[in-house]
């Protein structure tokens, strides 16, 4: 009598060890696991294996001696950062920029996604989406160049406006202290809102149409439907994105701030990463750069954990990252 080729009898499964059960399930989905091999290898090779190099944060790294041969200096590299009398300013500038960017740029893609979603005109929807995420592909250097050329107080569009209005005394808004954060954040919003909205648009496409029809029948307005149906649907996505953004509050990249920096706005534009770039990488102080990076990462992980804990508490463990 032939045995059933498919699933083993439940009683047979119950007799197996956890490892055997795992192996059975693994073999059943071997194609999916095979697909995971390459990204897993990438993660291990490029994210975990290099972690041993973090020890140079506690060493006076000299390339000739190598990582293992360089001398241990303990916390000296961390002390170098705090010995600079302006370190509170660097930390505050980084936080201020990051928080401003968070409050300004976080809601915008959500609003854009909702706006695109409620639009019934298919062509307009597609055009709006495509046009909104195209700036994402402009390189940062080009984007800053365009921005500064436009805002040039003599030769740019702003200069032309000044002349038409008869303005004689002006500040150079491109480099002024007062305008640095606004230019930094809102240019980032313009460049990134379309791309960031893609995730929310795709989440919104999972909203069942029947819910909207039922709500219409109950007399709900469009805005009411957005508030009661669309937003709760994408709320888990919003929470996850917010937790991840909070985890990188101190990790503002140096490139944009560096490009927009000038002697006039140094007090607000010098952030941790530009300081590390100027004093670390450019001067071949790899240990110093690693120490500050490690410090940043520890703070980021701590913040990520705290925000995740708060989210879990508030949502009864439904919306946290873990």
């Amino acid at each position, binding site marked *: 009598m032939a045995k059933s080729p498919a699933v083993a009898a439940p009683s047979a499964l119950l007799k197996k060890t956890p490892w055997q059960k795992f192996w059975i399930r693994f073999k059943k989905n071997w194609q999916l696991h095979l697909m995971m091999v390459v990204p897993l290898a990438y993660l291990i090779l490029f994210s975990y294996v290099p972690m041993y190099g973090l020890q140079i944060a506690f060493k006076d790294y000299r390339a000739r001696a190598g990582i293992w041969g360089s001398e241990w200096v303990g916390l000296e590299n961390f002390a170098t950062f705090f010995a600079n009398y302006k370190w509170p300013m660097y930390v505050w500038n980084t936080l201020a920029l990051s928080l401003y960017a968070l409050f300004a740029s976080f809601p915008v893609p959500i609003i854009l996604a909702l706006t695109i979603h409620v639009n019934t005109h298919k062509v307009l929807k597609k055009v709006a989406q495509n046009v909104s995420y195209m700036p994402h592909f402009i390189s940062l250097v080009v984007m800053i160049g365009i921005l500064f050329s436009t805002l040039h107080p003599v030769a740019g569009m702003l200069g032309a406006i000044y002349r038409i209005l008869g303005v*004689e005394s002006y500040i150079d808004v491109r480099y002024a202290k007062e305008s640095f954060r606004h230019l930094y954040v809102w240019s980032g919003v313009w460049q990134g809102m379309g791309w960031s909205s893609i995730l929310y648009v795709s989440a919104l496409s999972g909203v069942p149409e029947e819910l909207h029809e039922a709500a219409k029948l109950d007399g709900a307005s469009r805005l009411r439907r957005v508030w009661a149906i669309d937003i709760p649907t994408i709320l888990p996505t919003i929470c996850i994105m917010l937790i991840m953004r909070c985890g990188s509050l101190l990790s503002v990249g140096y490139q944009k701030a560096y490009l927009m920096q000038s002697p006039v706005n140094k007090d607000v534009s010098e952030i941790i990463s530009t300081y590390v770039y100027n004093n670390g990488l450019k001067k*071949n102080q790899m240990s110093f750069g690693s120490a500050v990076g490690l410090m940043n990462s520890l703070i980021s992980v701590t913040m990520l954990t705290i925000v995740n804990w708060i989210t879990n508490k508030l949502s009864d463990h439904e919306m946290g990252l873990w």
Partner: protein
Amino acid sequence: MKKILTLLLALVMTVSLFAACGDKDAGNKGEGNGKPTLTIGIPADANVMSYDDNALTNWLEEQLDCNLEFMIYSGGSDIATQISTTVAARQPLPDVLWDISLGAALITQYGEDGYLVDLAPYFYSDVEAKTPNTEMAPNFWEKMDMWDAYYGEEMEAKFQDEVIYRMTEEDGAIYSYPVFGFTPTDSMVYQVWINQTWLDKLGLPMPTDVDSFYETLKAFKANDCNGNGIHDEIPLYGNRLDSLGADTYSYLINMFGYWDGGTYWLDNGDGTLQNAYTADHYREGLKFINKLYKEGLMNPLTVTGSSSEMKRLVTPATGPALVGVWVGHATIATTMGNDTLKEYVAMPYWGTAVEKRCSVTREVYITTDCPEENREIAFKMLDLFLSDEGAMRCRYGEPGVNWKDYEGTETSPSGEVWKWEIIEDPLSLQTNAIWSSALCITPCSELISMKQPGTDWYKYKIEQVWAQYQNYQAAMERNPDRVYPGPRYTTEEEERTGVARENCTTYVKTSMTEFITGILDPNNDAQWNAYLNKLDELGLATWQEVSEASWNRLLDAGFGA
């Protein structure tokens, strides 16, 4: 059909992944001809079409009987960072790094870490006794003896001191081949230009002191000097510090006393130093600049602008001149050939001038990845660039095509007959004649030796730059007898003062901007004293003590004697 197409696409994409793989030696020039090969790391220059099929390369290969290969770096000012990354990743460097600015601190670090070859034994046959090695470095020592022809014997001694000082480390090692320029235009940190057309229109004389300079700027601002009916005149404009050294602030502060902010210290004449950013005349200079800024006489873009912006304003593509007085290197504008520029003439200095007797750049190195047997060839190549023909080829390109020996009797502004005649300057053109439009070595003074194509434009340039040179020389006559050339510390001193230096230099730079833009008031004694007290808090005394020790070592070794 779909399956076949999908499989085909997957195959093509997989194969293309391996396209980057290949024999790294494949296609190397000169493979198998038995000649030694030197690899040269060089920044990409958009105007150079090919480094391999290049007139300068071919000439050097012929002179040195070797093959030259190139590793091109792109990224402008980030090349030093790329080198740092290469070093940190323990990847090999090219044999020679050419036209790459690492900065003094990195040069010392790389030298001490063993990445750069100590060239002292090539410059000196007896390193201890400092006996010139005229066999290995004939052109270097020959050029070192030529300064008196242009500047007199007394200045020659100062120049020689400066070149040796700048090229040598504290421990006597030499990690880069110094490239020094003879052209007076390159010797100046700033050149000041005033709009003669505007002066004539307003009936004003050339300014001769601070007060008349101030009044002239006010007149430029108050009147429609360019006659276009729009109030767009910019009285004074200049770069804070451009890549060629022009520094508007230095020029203005030197109206009140000798000041070189780049070295941070001023020699008191008795072996002690005073910080340049605490000197009384520095404060006077700040008061004046602040006044110009507040009254709109100095354009705010001076604080933030770049060379490219200056070109746009000083030589507008359309419309009349916009600027009354501008401070900048002649090269910024004279490559333009814009007729608006001819409205400007050299303005005299009535103060002192930052004493930059020669431009000594340390941007050429031999790395320790260069095989021992090839180092002598590499050094000879670098020394060739200081020969007359080598320097002319480096800067002006191919003889017979870009330049030739002058055979006429016409004289230069100095009264000497021209030595060479330029046919077509390859700078800023698409060319295979030179390697770089940045590192341009010239064999001697352009103004004295090189007849340019005889257009009105070049006639104007030579006349004005010669006038600038004479103004600068006159200003240098007013300088103190001896000036502090800049710091040079031992490794221990670097470490001891590292934090204090960094804090103080950051503070003085930001404070300078704040005093100029009015955030702080240089006229306010309380604020000025608070600024001085803050510097003391940040460790100025420690830095001063170490700088004086270093300076006294130099004086004991005969510098400036």
